[in-house]
């Protein structure tokens, strides 16, 4: 997996699935429409989808993605072009949903304190190494496990299963 580079958008603790993607948008299926509502319920971030650039990272504190099992909360960020989420901890279902949709998630202690919005990050998904190019600091995220990386490389669980069945 290649090195990724992008700007950080820093969020707080307990960014739940309603903040990331509100329940009222669950019937939407058009990726562009879904992307528009990413992070809409986070106070001050109503227009996140307009401000973020493809390749940027969402950085957060503890318990990112807590709540619902809705995969929209992963897909809206993916469709928006966000490169991945790096948080101090990620709720169990969100973590699985991300891997299963080929969307990068890394857990990294203290990341929300060591990175400011606008900082330029370089991330190695393979080793979990995160370089804050703006501050020069290096941080170590938990690298993905073998199976997780395998699923990610295929682009998600559905593609992974399809390839196993063909193989």
């Amino acid at each position: 997996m290649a090195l990724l580079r992008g700007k950080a958008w820093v969020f707080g603790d307990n960014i739940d699935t309603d903040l990331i993607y509100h329940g009222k948008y669950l019937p939407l299926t058009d990726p562009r429409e879904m992307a528009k509502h990413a992070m809409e319920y986070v106070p001050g971030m109503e227009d996140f989808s307009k401000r973020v650039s493809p390749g940027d990272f969402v950085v957060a504190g503890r318990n990112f993605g807590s709540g619902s099992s809705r995969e929209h909360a992963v897909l809206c960020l993916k469709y928006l072009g966000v490169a991945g989420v790096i948080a101090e901890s990620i709720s169990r279902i969100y973590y699985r949903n991300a891997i299963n949709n080929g969307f990068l998630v890394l857990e990294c202690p203290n990341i929300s304190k060591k990175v400011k919005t606008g900082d330029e990050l370089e991330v190695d998904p393979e080793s979990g190494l995160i370089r804050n190019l703006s501050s020069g600091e290096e941080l170590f995220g938990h690298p993905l496990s073998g199976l997780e990386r395998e699923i990610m490389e295929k682009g998600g669980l559905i593609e992974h299963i399809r390839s196993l069945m063909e193989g």
Partner: protein
Amino acid sequence: MGMTFAEKILAKKSGLSQVKPGDVVTVEPDRVMSHDNAASIIKLFKSIGVERVWNADKIVIILDHAVPAPTDKHALNHKEIREFVKEQGIKNFYDTDSDGGVCHQVFCEEGFALPGHLILGSDSHTCTYGAFGAFSTGIGRSEMAAIWAVGRIWLRVPESIRIELEGEFPQGVYAKDLILRIIGDLGADGADYRSVEFSGSAVKDMSISDRMTLCNMVIEMGAKNGVIEPDDKILSYLDGIAKSEFEIVKADPDAFYERVLRYDLSKIEPLVAKPHGVDNVLPVREVRGVRINQAFIGTCTNGRIEDLRIAARLLKGRRIAKGVRLIVIPASWRVYKQALREGVLEILIDSGAIIAPPGCGPCMGNHLGILAPGEVCISTANRNFKGRMGNPESEIYLASPATVAVSALMGFIADPREVL
């Protein structure tokens, strides 16, 4: 070294003699459950390129998130699900009719939630079935599509926390207050990835409804599952309704727990979770007087007959405060009919409440009671995330059915012990 419940059941289901936390195992679930999101699972399933589901009898689909359909988009989803279950021969389908209701309630009433079963659902509150001694947890829709196709999934063996419950609830205090206390103490991520086992003498005294309330909310502290060892109460409930055979799985007495917590029920008081976090827990007395616009009794957490009876007892012969809307949604049509027979619905209606058809209703902001900006709702649901009930400028307090009923009576948040 003995094994915890989670270790033991995951070892058994993966054909291993021993597993430890952190191990990744591949398992075939005994049963899987989906609701309205079956519509998007169907699309993912079809994209895999498999013709038939792995086992039509193991798939349960219960429509509840938006029933009857409030928009054409929801209606189309439901239509696609109906066509799919017919085509695939999925018999365990609960549509918009009087066999239905909130998926977790119907799943348990119908005898699908069984001891020693491994159950996965494409809904985060699938953890509810731990009340029957099942290992049950929520998964995403891609994972569900994959299971429909190949009948297998990987699960990480979780660390376990044991919570021992002793003593008796004081008057006006219920299982909802207890689980709010625990979530408040542990925090919204305090049990992240963990398996939570409830044990102790107080659990034995609890009704099945109370046990479901406890297990339902473990996800609000991040847990993978919650579980209570089945006893005679569970076995006699399942007698005659169990949908298949089962074998009880119990934790070993010498199992290792990451943490052991103890709660004395007699020390718990009526509590609320304040906006906008479930772990934002305070005694009712500290928020007494907060004006409310709406009160909501229902959901997979607290919409059972026991909950409606509590509300009816408090509201009998009384009228709710002017300007307050009390919305009651029985968790299933079975609960609805029972409440009808007992006169519970009439008491609630006479008090000023309106009764809506069983389903999730306004819990996640779909329909039947969306809040306006600036409005405050006190609810028996399990989540009070910002905007959860439809508007980001509204506020949700979570509480027991008793606290919600008494608050509706007063027009502001109040302690049920004031009326009892």
